[in-house]
């Protein structure tokens, strides 16, 4: 084991241990706690930059920076951490967002500082653990561990209805992921029936899973969807999200939208696609239909919201629909777009939540009816807000576009899986996104000046600290929008690995297609439904 192999365990352990070490801080010294948390998370970010440096980008598809040590030998559980480019980008997203989030909550958190930052750091450790884990049990532990800090963040630091929100969030996601765990355990058990030792090594299980029959894979897929679809959240298991977001503190929302939702899509990417390729190919249209319903449905629901934060929360559901849709296009463009979407959504929606939080800190309300024309009062804030809204709408040149476009392109060109109709339906989301985002911008930022009562407090525009939180995000939005090449290039080999089994299934189907009536007629149905009369 060389030094590089220690980076990933350190990435997980530093926030975890330092977080718990903060318990030792003297009571009532919140100022120390926040500076310390900021320092730790920045340190972790620097460490993750080291990880990028140590990572061999020329073979970005391979698992690197491997740390592999025995853990629970009896059943073959190992502490196995490694990253490929997909994981590394998501780790980077996590480590990048965390200092910003901590900086953003300096003022918002007024009491129990130590606890607050402790949970944030633990959350970070768990999220990094999820993205790095190459052992199923480790993955699952980290996956579930994310629930605990967020439960406390929402339950203690949330707004009025927080306790119900935290419980609902917890139960909802936990219930789903239990089934997921059952699904992957089934695969692990299946592996032993092939005459192998018990192991939870993900790579080994990939190979084992390929021996599953179609029906078995379908069940595995269903089990995986139970947990990951809730986490994403996919329509119709999304209802915990708006509640959790509206009740969560700003930083909770940022992390929830920015990273935690990606655990679901990441899980689908890591497990569903390689482990159940036959089922994925077969049921991709079904999942795509749910994604598309989610895209359109959530967008329309956004449009009638009065609470800014709720609107942004519902927009997340709509956006994540694109993410899942692209993933089940099962081609490089679609899945690549999906991963880009994960990163980009984390940045832009995270930023939007920060912006909303800044308004909430000033006016103690998020009701659109109570405010209007804030551009006059808070010009810098308004500039950032409109900017991130545009990123969220998917304006080309900003980050949101790359992911959105690639997912739709992937769907469009995946004529063997989804095809044009799906892409067209999803693209409707582009229009609706513009509608609801501009509706919000028009009501909050523009219009005649109207401010909620601040009880004599003078409202100031963004402080340097607040600009400091938004500026890095804005810069990243532009960089990812204008020059996404490094990301796309490095993602490509990893994505090819992920979709290889599914592509193989598709290739086999193509060969069979002329003989199998079902496929041919299916295909014809899809295309012919688009034919105008004249063409036939």
């Amino acid at each position, binding site marked *: 084991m060389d030094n590089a192999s220690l980076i990933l365990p350190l990435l997980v352990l530093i926030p975890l241990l330092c977080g718990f070490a903060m318990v030792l801080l003297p009571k009532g010294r919140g100022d120390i706690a926040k500076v310390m948390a900021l320092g730790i998370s920045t340190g972790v970010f620097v460490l993750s930059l080291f990880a990028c440096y140590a990572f061999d980008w020329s073979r970005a598809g391979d698992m690197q920076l491997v740390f592999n040590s025995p853990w629970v030998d009896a059943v073959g559980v190992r502490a196995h951490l490694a990253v490929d480019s997909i994981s590394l980008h998501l780790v980077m997203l996590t480590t990048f967002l965390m200092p910003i989030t901590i900086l953003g909550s300096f003022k918002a958190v007024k009491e129990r500082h130590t606890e607050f930052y402790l949970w944030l750091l633990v959350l970070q450790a768990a999220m990094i653990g999820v993205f790095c884990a190459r052992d199923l049990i480790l993955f699952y532990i980290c996956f579930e561990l994310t629930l605990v800090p967020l439960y406390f963040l929402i339950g203690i630091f949330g707004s009025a209805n927080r306790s119900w929100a935290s419980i*609902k969030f917890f139960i909802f996601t936990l219930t789903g992921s239990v089934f997921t765990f059952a699904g992957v355990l089934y695969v692990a058990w299946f592996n032993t029936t092939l005459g192998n030792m018990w192991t939870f090594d993900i790579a080994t299980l990939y190979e084992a899973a390929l021996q599953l029959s179609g029906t078995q894979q379908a069940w595995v897929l269903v089990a995986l969807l139970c947990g990951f679809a809730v986490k994403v959240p996919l329509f*119709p298991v999304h*209802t*915990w999200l708006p509640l959790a977001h509206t009740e969560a503190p700003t930083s909770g929302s940022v992390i929830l939208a920015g990273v935690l939702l990606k655990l679901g899509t990441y899980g689908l990417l890591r497990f569903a696609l390689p482990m159940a390729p036959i089922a994925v190919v077969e049921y991709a249209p079904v999942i795509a239909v749910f994604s598309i319903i989610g895209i359109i*449905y959530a967008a*329309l*629901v*956004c*449009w*009638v*919201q009065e609470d800014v934060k709720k609107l942004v929360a519902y927009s997340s559901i709509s956006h994540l629909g694109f993410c899942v849709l692209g993933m089940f296009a099962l081609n*490089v*463009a679609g899945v*690549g*777009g999906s991963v880009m979407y994960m990163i980009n959504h984390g940045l832009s929606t995270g930023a939007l939540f920060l912006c909303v939080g800044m308004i909430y800190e000033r006016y103690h309300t998020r009701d659109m009816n109570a405010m209007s*024309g804030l551009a*006059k009062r808070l*010009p810098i804030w308004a*500039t950032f807000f409109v900017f991130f809204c*545009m990123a969220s709408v998917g*304006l*080309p*040149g900003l980050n949101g*576009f*790359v992911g959105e*476009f*690639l997912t*739709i*392109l992937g769907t*469009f*060109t995946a*004529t063997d899986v989804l095809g*044009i109709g799906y*892409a067209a339906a999803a*693209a409707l989301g*582009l*229009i609706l996104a*513009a*509608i609801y985002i*501009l*509706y919000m911008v*028009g009501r909050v*930022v*523009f*219009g*005649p*000046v109207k401010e909620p009562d601040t009880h004599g407090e003078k409202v100031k525009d963004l402080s340097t600290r607040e600009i400091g939180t938004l500026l890095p995000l804005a810069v990243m939005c532009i960089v990812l929008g*204008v*020059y*996404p*090449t490094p990301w*796309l*290039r490095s993602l*490509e080999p990893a994505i090819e690995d992920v979709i290889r089994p599914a592509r193989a299934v598709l290739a086999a189907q193509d060969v069979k297609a002329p003989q199998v009536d079902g496929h041919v007629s299916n295909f014809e149905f899809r*295309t012919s439904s*688009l*034919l*105008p009369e*004249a*063409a036939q």
Partner: protein
Amino acid sequence: MHTLAATNLDLINLAKWIPLLPLIALVINGIVLGAFKPARKFAALVTILAVGGSFALSVAVWLGMGSASEFTSEQAFVIVRAFEWIHIGGFDGFRADVSFFIDPLTVIMLLTVTGVGTLIAIYASGYMAGDPGYHRFFAYIGLFIFAMTILVMADNLLLLFLGWEGVGVSSYLLIGYYYRKPSAVAAAKKAFIVNRVGDFGFALGLMGVFLVFGAVQYDRVLPEAESVYWMQEHGLDDGRGIFSNTIDDADPIFADAELVIPNIVEVGKREAEIFGSDLKKTLLIIIPFLLMLGAFGKSAQLPLHVWLPDAMEGPTPVSALIHAATMVTAGVYMIARLLPIFQLSEYALYTVAIVGGVTALFAATIALCQYDIKRVWAYSTVSQLGYMFLGVGVLSTVGGVFHLFTHAFFKALLFLTAGSVMHALAGQLDMRKMSGLFRKMPVTAILMLIGCLALAGFPYTAGYYSKDLILAEALVAHPWLGWMGIAVALITAFYTFRLWFRVFTGPTEYEMSNEHHGYPSDHAHDDDHAHHGPHEMPILMNAPLVILAIGAITLGFLTHDWVKDMVEHSTAGAARLSEPHSPAHHAAHVEVDPHHTDTAHHDPYHAAHKLVSTITKIGSISMILLAGYFFWFNRKAAERIASAFGLIKRFLENKWYVDELYHVIIVLPLRVFGWLFYLFDRLIIDGLVVDGLLRYTPRLAGEAQTPLARGVLQGFAVVMAIGVIAVLAFVMYSVL
């Protein structure tokens, strides 16, 4: 890579600085001046310098290109590579780089955009003086010019789309510039959303192009489309070569310009693939319609025209620059650019022509009855854009682009003079509340007169030439559209002069508005005009108008041949389209005089041309006179006639009730669905299923066993007994 005497690559390579300069202006205005208040008065200067610099660079590129015919005969186009943008899926995958496609059509567009942009920026520096958002305004202008230049220079559809959406967002920001005015915010929103509807089509069309042709770069798509078209027409699949271009791996950032030489490569493979796939054949049919949707959205054609009149809520220079001269013509440019693809679908161009013609008529009728000066010009713009689409739709790309070119000048002029009137009357735009302003502001009146003449197609003005070209081609291709166009030309002349006569002639009366710069003047610091009454504009504002006016008069006969030469030698050249495109053929083609192709349909065209020019000459003059009679000498008669047609008048005044119709059939249902879905979300999914079924089922199950778990010892004992029984039963049935 060749270096040719006629073509100076170093100059062409400057093209990549064209969008960069306005971008720098955006950054300086937005960030530096935003942070540093005292320097804000230099905002205009920064933008004018940047846009002017872009114009200078455009001229340089034009010079570097040399003569259009020579340029085209040698290399068809030049691609200036900047850096890689989106590239996924390996060699056969999707690729769209930030690189620029320079051919004569691009150069015309660049010159128009940056030239008119510079003039309007100069005008705006005076017009917007004293506005609190001065730097913001010029930052947005920088953003707009950046996006627009990207749009016209893009070498692939996706970069085009970037520009396309970029102009959309800058238009959004500029329409909503007076953001405290709810109507402005609503108009901005409407513009963006309606444009998005178009973009939806465009994006899908783009993906369709990728699916069929395997690329979105013009240099790969257009030649292939031409080749497919050739095969479609001739039923051949002889695998003859077409142009294609070797694509070197782009250097990541700022590679040098690269001369792309047409060369023979192995082709026929993809064509065969296209003809072999039902899906692709189908797509070929629908792609143009999707792209068209985008064009109609951006260029405010039926049925997506509704945003443009409302967009007049923005400052007047914006209306002139974006909503008259440049952005709205992007649709025309796009169709002209992608003409080879449009040709592949049998009815696509015909549809474009019909929509263009119908919109022209439709908008002209509305313009007849509007009282808001800027709205009249707005509908006039929609109508003129309809002409351009008509032109492109009948394959008269020269006519379409020429009209685009001249229209940019005279419509900018018209808007800016309207802005001057508005400026003078403190924001008054209602022509019922002004009259006889000639005495107060003669220069403005004359300048607007020139614009009006050009718009009305007065003989030998710019508008006359361009309109003529389109109408003649239309008359040949689809006579009914041609006649409709001629009718529109007459209506145009009438409503144009209705406005001019009402505003500038007659007894001098006016009513000042209490609004200026978008807001009721609660801050009076800049409203000194309110106390002085109408007055002439300062020289800073009039100077660009004079240039535009000169353009509006002279451009027609001065640039007629130049534009024709340029367009015919671009990828949009009609001559190229009807010819097969082997390099050999191409080379042969270049020797032919550009006018030569016209002789192919010499007779019908020239007859039509003569007919049209005669009709429009007589028609426009007589219509001007008619308008003069009604609105100068005998306004009472006009009112009598108007009241006789009260119902129609009201119908037209209300713009055919299209807004209301859209509200009822689209906006309202969507909104209702939004509410319904939200209720469904809260009540059914969250309420009934999650909080009801999913929450209460376990809860009921729990309730059912509370007697056992109420904390009484016996309950636990019973549960334990049950457990023992279960274990024993299991043992009994499985082991024993």
